[in-house]
């Protein structure tokens, strides 16, 4: 190897090292901050200023900090939140004997699990204030926690479970965003959502007991109502039966009365022509039927018209 070759190889090596330090790739999904001796110089590919691709910096003097440009998520650990007092049920639950501490006990405790989505909008602020994502998370966590507690503490569980939920969550997001802006985290809170808002595990048994007793009550009520309806149906059926029979009885008696009326009228028409004779004639008929039979013993007086000739001396 000639010295020229060695020299050119060295030169080439230096050029390569310098070149590879001066040129750098900016990915679509990252923001690159260039710092010179630790001082912020500029940032590349911030949201709104798309400039991904190959970029140049002053080699060795300037250094890079790569930040995530995408929407990031922060999932703080769940916190136990004391909900606000329910104004509707507060009046009924208020216990006049022991004011003070008991008031707090009526407010439900919830385990709230929120998650925050944000993105870095100002790389300079971010690098200066938060420095890294890990540090930002540790900064943001108490802010979110405070916002969640503060906002939820002003609303009741009933409100959180209602259509108001979106507004309440929006309020939390606004509060977090406000802090993030005023302390120049360089981020924008896109939204805060409440993933979970449940009773704590130790309260679950009480909830289950309540659910169970409520079902039992419903079961008993259902049974009783069923029985009530059944009784009503039976009673109505019985009443209807009695009514049907009574109406039938009435109609039957009416028919019988009509029949008797008719019979009396017919007989009356016929017999009124000669009442005396009818009495005689009918008596004869009655004797025949009434005194019929072998067992009748007749005690007769000779004065009887039947024995008129029997007792007379003259034949």
């Amino acid at each position, binding site marked *: 190897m000639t010295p020229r070759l060695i020299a050119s190889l060295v030169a080439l090596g230096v050029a390569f090292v310098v070149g590879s330090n001066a040129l750098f790739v900016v990915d679509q999904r990252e923001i690159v901050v260039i710092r010179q001796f630790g001082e912020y110089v500029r940032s590349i590919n911030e949201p709104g200023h798309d400039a991904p691709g190959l970029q140049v910096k002053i080699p060795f003097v300037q250094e890079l900090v790569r930040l995530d440009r995408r929407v990031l998520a922060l999932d703080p650990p769940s916190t136990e939140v004391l909900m606000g007092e329910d104004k509707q049920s507060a009046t009924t639950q208020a216990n006049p004997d022991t004011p003070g501490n008991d008031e707090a006990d009526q407010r439900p405790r919830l385990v709230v699990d929120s998650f925050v989505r944000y993105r870095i909008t100002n790389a300079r602020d971010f690098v200066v204030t938060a420095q890294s994502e890990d540090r930002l998370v540790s900064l943001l966590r108490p802010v979110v926690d405070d916002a969640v507690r503060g906002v939820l503490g002003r609303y009741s569980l009933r409100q959180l479970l209602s259509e108001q939920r979106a507004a309440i969550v929006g309020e939390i997001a606004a509060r977090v965003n406000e802090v993030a802006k005023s302390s120049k985290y360089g981020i924008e809170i896109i939204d805060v959502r409440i993933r979970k808002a449940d009773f704590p*595990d130790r309260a679950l048994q009480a909830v289950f007991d309540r659910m169970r007793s409520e079902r039992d009550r419903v079961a008993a009520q259902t049974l009783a109502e*069923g029985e009530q309806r059944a009784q009503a149906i039976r009673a109505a059926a019985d009443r209807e039966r009695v009514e049907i029979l009574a109406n039938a009885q009435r109609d039957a008696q009416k028919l019988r009365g009509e029949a008797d009326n*008719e019979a009396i009228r017919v007989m009356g028409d016929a017999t009124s022509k000669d009442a005396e004779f009818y009495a005689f*004639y009918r008596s004869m008929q009655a004797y025949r039927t009434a005194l019929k039979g072998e067992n009748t013993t007749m005690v007769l*007086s*000779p004065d009887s*018209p039947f024995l008129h000739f029997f007792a007379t001396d003259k034949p």
Partner: protein
Amino acid sequence: MSWNQGGGPWGNQGGNQGGNNQGNPWGQRGGGGNGGPDGPDLDEMLRRSQERFRNAFGGGSPKGSGLLVALAVVAVIALQGMTQGHFLGFYRINDGEVAVVQRFGAVVRQEPPGLRWLVPLAEKYTAVSTSRINRVELGVPAQTTSTRNRDSSNDNLMMLSGDSNMVDVQFTVQWRVSDAVKFLFNMRNPDMTLKMAAEGVMREVMGQNQIMTAIGSGREAIRQDVEKRLRELMTTYDAGINVDSVQLQRMEAPAPVIDAFIKAQNAQQDANKAVNIAEGYRSSVLPQARAEANRMLEEARAYKSQVVAGAQGDADRFTQVYNAYKQAQTTTTTRLYLETMEQVLGGANKLVLDGATAGKALPYLPLDTLRRAPAATTATTAAPAASTHNNSGNN
């Protein structure tokens, strides 16, 4: 040698690429490594190296160093390509996928399925399936009976209903990548975000429903509501995710209290049963009553017919008799009277007591004996007494 020749055209291409691509530091190294001893000038060296390349391949020059360098370049490109899923720039995109190609980190194009080529070292691709349906499952599926016994643990998806009851939910979200670039570059862990969003939306919807609605008739409405809201939310997130559908596997009372719910359901059935029995009673009693009523009416009608007809008959008979009687009144009454007496007294036991005897002494009549011995006939000769027979004389 055969391997080298086989890889020749590839190597050539790759080598040219590396040499020609301006601003590619690796390409410079590839070219520079071959630098001749003639001059320190970089351009000159480049030019020479390119010449040597051509000599090495095109001219069939046996220069070992040139061949070696070309080989090294090809090997570097091939090795680098292997880490990124392509061979010397060639890669395959399957059906239903789309390749997002980035050049130095910037997205330059999207490639449809097929055999595609990219510039090695400078470009890289990410294949994203836009047709595959992905699933996110939330909540624990209840496959075995043993899982039913476990109490509320955190892996179980329990949520508050609007009436502060707990509901055990298990559901699946099916989603697809609708925009590969957005999916890759807009959000970190978009599928994780989707999962959280799905849970949040489900809880939100559940909070606006009563438990009996949720586990009963409102199930489908809740499913649709969740699907709609989640789809809207993912649209606002602009994460390139399209929610295809939300499926509810389970939405019921938590395992520890499910027996109470079943009991309440059974109570409903028992209540219905009681009502049905009562209806049955009604259905049997009323027809019976109607039948009874009908019978009573028919009996009354029969009575009417009987009585009226009987009266008519009696009246007609009397009229007939009366008409005949009017012809000979006295004799007819006498005859009727005597005939009747004859018939009546014919079969009876008779006892004739004299009126005088009856007046003087109380006649002793052992009624029992008379009844027991009807055959014994006692006749007492009565004293002649004047009797008037007025009946027949009357008109």
